[in-house]
């Protein structure tokens, strides 16, 4: 069961990264519009942080080619 659970976890993290975007944009007082180093927080998240995090998530969760079921 562990393999299936971890596989689902990876997909769940990717979906949470996607869900983070509307949640961030819904924050009160237009917090997502606050600019950091020229870019708003929302654009930092959706344009840079979330895609890079999605990439890292996929690399961590998808098993290496030599991995057996225990390492899934």
């Amino acid at each position, binding site marked *: 069961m562990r393999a*299936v659970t971890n*596989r689902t976890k990876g997909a769940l993290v990717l979906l949470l990264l996607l869900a983070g*975007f509307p949640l961030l944009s819904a924050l009160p007082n237009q917090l997502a519009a606050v600019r950091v180093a020229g870019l708003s927080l929302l*654009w930092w998240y*959706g344009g840079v942080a979330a*895609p890079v995090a999605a*990439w890292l998530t996929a690399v961590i969760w*998808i*098993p290496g080619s030599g*991995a057996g079921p225990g390492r899934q």
Partner: protein
Amino acid sequence: MTSAVGLLGVWLTPAVWFGMSALILDGGPDGLWVGLALVCAPLVALGMGSRPAGPLAEPARPDREPLFNVVILLVTVGVLLWANIILAGDAAAWLGAPRWQGIALTAAAGWLLTAWRGCRRILTPLLLLALIGVSVPLVQAARAVGAGPLGAWERVASAPAFRFPAASRWVTAGRDFRMAGGRAPIAFDEEHRITAPSGGTLRARTVDGNRIADIEWNLTPGQSVTLRPGDQVERTSVLRIRFEAGKRVPGAPQTGIAWAEGRAGDWARRAALLFTILAGALALLRSGAAGPTSRGVAAVVGGGLVVGFLSAQAWAVYSVLGAPDLFLGGVTLERLVELPGLAFAGSPWRRPLQAALLGAGLAGFLASSVALRERLGALDRTGGGEIGYDLGLWAGVFGVAATASLWPVDPWRLTVLALGGAAAALSPAVLWSPPNESPAAATVAGLVGLAVFAALAVAAGLRAGPGGVLLAYPAAVAVPAGAAVLWVARRGARRAKAVE
């Protein structure tokens, strides 16, 4: 097909890349979120498709892929090629060449490549060429405007208004009004004097206090008309028009801040689009795919998607910084095939870089056409992938796609339609394999999903004006319908086993 580059070629077609850029430009954060979904969806699909080996493995794949799956993927590949050929035709028309030339060149190049069996070897060089062809103009644009991507974004997001630059073709020579794209009338929010350099018919709905009037002007060459705030020009107008420099671009966001913050969200519609993209990725990348995805493949695909997404964002920002008139009448994909206007005004590099960009688009299309054919060939396990190189079959596919491309359709909508159709027919069986006792349940589930999808898509087509979320994204209903059929089949098989 396990090659990471092949997966990138299948997913990141030029229509998808330019679509990402156009959506970001058009909707700001809304488009950014769709771009993020286009990055995450294939990674979810690859992760979900990573079947463990050993005792937890899925049932062994049959030697032959069901004919249903092959036909659905063939149609999906055909529609994706169609969307990209339309983009080539639109780009040719936007750059001043006859539309058919862009269509014929692209379709012929794609078909000729099917005759070369070793073409899979040039998949990586083609994608690298596409990347270089986009990167060089981006670097040059950054140098010309004197700002990196963050600085360029800040300048766009701080713009007090989006106005016609003096160097815009809409201001200098004028353009055919039909090039403004879209179907809705173009509404003016400040006074504009528009000129018809060659004359023609201008149809407008004018507002004078509470009185609304539909007026048709037959303009002589060089004659001008003044339109006031609230007036609308109908898309049926047939003429070349010129705008005044420095006036607000009709249809553009009020300010850069408004663009950066985006419009109020219709989250039901966005969720349905996300579902379509996710299920479409599962169908397109995992249906009938051989073996699990390795970490190396995930690293290359993920890296390629992130680079593609970042470059699409940069392209959108530099494009609007150089040519705010891109917003006129709604952003369309082909406008982004032109180099950012102001950044290259008067530059001797303009022509070579424009040629490089068009070359990049063609290289991207050829890479995607090879990858899509290989993807289909991977289903032909007994025939050694022969289906991917059948000259007659692909002559038909490219011929039909090229002929259909003569009628302008939005390439992004067509791409979403292809993903939705594939999702409805194939994704339920990718997520929940049919019971070993009744493998035909997958086909039945696919047929049910496809029937629901087709019924809703036809209903959406018959309905005048925008329909509901489910009509816009029928896969959101069709996939669960197919999954329900599989659930019933699996439950029946379990019960039969328990009785035994």
